C-alpha cells in the first residue's frame, strides 16, 4: 500500500482535470505529479478486509485489504489469472451464480456487510451495476434493453424520458435516437457496449463495475468508452478491471495492482500487491513486481 502525501491541497470534489483521452497527455500529467491524493475527504464505498475468494475451496485471490472511494475511478490491473475479475464480481455478488464460489473475510458496502444473511442480492445489484467484458445486449430493441432494468424495478413513470437520459449519459443517444425500436444486435460492438453501459446506468446505480469493458472493442470504440468512464465519475463510483496499463493510466484515479502468487506446493492464487493513486503506482511503484509490470517486463 502506498498512500501518497498531498503534494498540493485540493478541493475533494474536484476531479483530476483530465479531459483528453490522449495517453501521452495523461502520462505527462502523471509524471509531473500534479495530482494530489484523490481519496482525500471522500466517502468510502467499499471496504474489503482480508477478503479471500475461493472456487470449490481453492483460493482464486487471497487476503485483499482495499478501500474504494466515492466518485473516483478505481482500476484493478494485473496479469491474467490474478483474480481481478473474481474480486470485481464479488462486489455485486455475481459469484453467487457460480456453484462452489465462496467469500471469506468481510466486504462492506457503505458500512454494511455485503454477504450478510439478510442482504438481498437483487437489491444489491440494483445499486451496484455491472458492465461485462463482451457487450451482451439482450436480443430486444435498443429501447427495451435500456428499459429492461427499469421495468424490473418498477421505475415506470416517464420511461421514455429515463431511456433518453440513460442513452444520453452513455453518449449513445445521438446515434440511436431515430431507431430506438431497432434490434440492439444491429449496433456495432462499441455501440453495443455503450448500450450495456446505458442499461446499467438506467436503474440509477451508485456504483458501476466494469470488467474489461473495452477488451473486445476496436481502438476508436475503446476511446469512446474511456471518455465515457471519465465523464461518469462525477455521478458514479466506478471500478474498472483491465489488463491494459495504458487504459488504467488514462482513466483511473486509483489503481490497484494484482499479481499471481505461486506457492511452494505449486498452487496459484491472486494477491493485491499494492494500490494507490495511479500516478504513484506508475511513476513510483513500491513493489518490484509492480515495476516489472508497468514497465512492460511481463504481463
Amino acid at each position, binding site marked *: 500500500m502506498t498512500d501518497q502525501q498531498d503534494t498540493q491541497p485540493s478541493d475533494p470534489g474536484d476531479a483530476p482535470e483530465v479531459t483528453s483521452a490522449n495517453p501521452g497527455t495523461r502520462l505527462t500529467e502523471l509524471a509531473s505529479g500534479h495530482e494530489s491524493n484523490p481519496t482525500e475527504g471522500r466517502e468510502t464505498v467499499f471496504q474489503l478486509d482480508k477478503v479471500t475468494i475461493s472456487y470449490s475451496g481453492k483460493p482464486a485471490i487471497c487476503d485483499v485489504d482495499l478501500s474504494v472511494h466515492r466518485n473516483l475511478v478505481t482500476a484493478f490491473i494485473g496479469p491474467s489469472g490474478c483474480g481481478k475479475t473474481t474480486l470485481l464480481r464479488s462486489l455485486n455478488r455475481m459469484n453467487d451464480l457460480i456453484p462452489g464460489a465462496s467469500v471469506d473475510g468481510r466486504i462492506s458496502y457503505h458500512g454494511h456487510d455485503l454477504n450478510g444473511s439478510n442482504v438481498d442480492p437483487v437489491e444489491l445489484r440494483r445499486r451496484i451495476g455491472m458492465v461485462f467484458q463482451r457487450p451482451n445486449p*439482450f436480443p430486444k430493441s435498443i429501447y427495451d434493453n435500456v428499459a429492461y432494468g427499469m421495468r424490473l424495478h418498477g421505475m415506470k413513470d416517464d420511461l421514455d424520458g429515463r431511456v433518453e437520459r440513460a442513452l444520453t449519459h452513455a453518449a449513445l443517444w445521438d446515434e440511436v435516437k431515430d431507431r430506438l425500436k431497432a434490434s440492439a444486435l444491429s449496433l456495432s460492438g462499441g455501440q453495443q457496449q455503450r448500450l450495456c453501459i446505458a442499461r446499467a446506468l438506467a436503474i440509477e446505480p451508485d456504483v458501476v463495475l466494469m470488467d474489461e469493458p473495452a477488451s473486445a472493442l476496436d481502438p476508436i470504440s475503446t476511446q469512446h468508452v474511456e471518455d465515457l468512464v471519465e465523464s461518469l465519475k462525477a455521478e458514479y463510483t466506478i471500478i474498472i478491471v483491465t489488463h491494459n496499463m495504458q487504459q488504467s493510466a488514462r482513466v483511473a484515479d486509483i489503481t490497484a495492482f494484482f499479481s499471481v502468487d505461486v506457492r511452494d506446493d505449486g498452487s496459484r492464487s491472486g494477491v493485491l500487491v499494492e494500490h494507490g493513486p495511479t500516478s504513484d503506482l506508475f511513476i513510483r511503484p513500491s513493489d518490484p513486481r509492480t515495476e516489472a509490470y508497468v514497465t512492460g517486463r511481463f504481463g
Partner: protein
Amino acid sequence: MSAQDDRNPLTVVSPRSRRRKLQGRLMELLASFAALVAIVVLLVVIFSVAKRGLPAVNADLFTQVAAPFGVEGGGIKNAIVGTLIMTAMATAMAVPIGVLLAIFDTEFAPPQVSVAIRMTLNVLAGVPTIVIGIFIFGLVVVSNGQSAFAASIALAIIILPVIARATEEVLLLVPSTLREGSMALGATRARTVVSVILPSAFGGIVTATIVGVARAAGETAPILFTSSIFANAVVTDPSQPMASMPFAIFTNSESPSHHDQQVAWAAALLLMAFVLLGSITGRLLSLRTRRQIEQMR
C-alpha cells in the same frame, strides 16, 4: 520431368505416406457411401409410397369416412380428424411439461440433478412405444375403456423426452452472458428466464414442438391398446376412441378390397408428407434460431 524435380522433397512420396493417403481416401469413400445409402433409402421410400398412393389421393379420401365392412369406397376423414385431435391433445400435454422440465434442468437444477434428469429423459426416449402403450392400457384403459384421451396420454409420454431434450439443447445455446447481464441488473432467475432466455430460445421451442407433433402423428403401437375400437364415423369426443391415420393404414392394408389397399397407400403418403413437412419446417426454424443466437455471442 528432370532429375532435379525427382529430388524435390515436396514431391517425394514414401510408401508409408502413400499408405496413409490410401487409408484416408478409403475412409472418405466409406463415409460418403453410408451417407448415400441413407439418402437413397429415403428417396426410394418416398417414391414407392407416392407411386402407389398418389392415384388414390382425391376429394373422397378427405371427405368420406371409412365405408362399412363389405362396401366399396370410403375415405379416411375420420382417421385424419382423429389423428389431428389426438396429436393436438398429446402436444398440449407434453409441451408445457417438456418445456418447464427443460427450463428446470438448464436454469435451476444443481449439476447432479440435471445429469440425472437428462439420463432419465434419454431412457424414456428409448422405451419401446408398445411398452408405453401397454402401460397406459393398464393404467387408464382397463378401468375406463379405450378413448382418444388415453391414446393422447400415451403419445404425450412418447414425445415428452423429444420436446424436453430439444428445448434443453436450445436453452443451453443461449449465451450465459445474457443470463449474467440480466441478473446484474437485479433480475431474479425466474424473471431472467421469462424475459430473456425464453424469448431468445422461442424459435427452438417451436422447433421442438413441431418435431414432437410429427413424431406423435406417426406413432402406431400405443394407439393399438388405447384407441383402436371405433365406429366408422367422425368422433370429436375425446372420451371415445377415435380412428387414426396409422391405424387406418394398417386396417386398410389388411383389407381384401383393392380400393381399401389404395386408400392405405394414400394415407401412408399423407402421413409421410405431414411428418416430412414437419421435420423440414422444424429443421429450417432451428437453423434460423441458431443463427439468431449466434449473433448474440
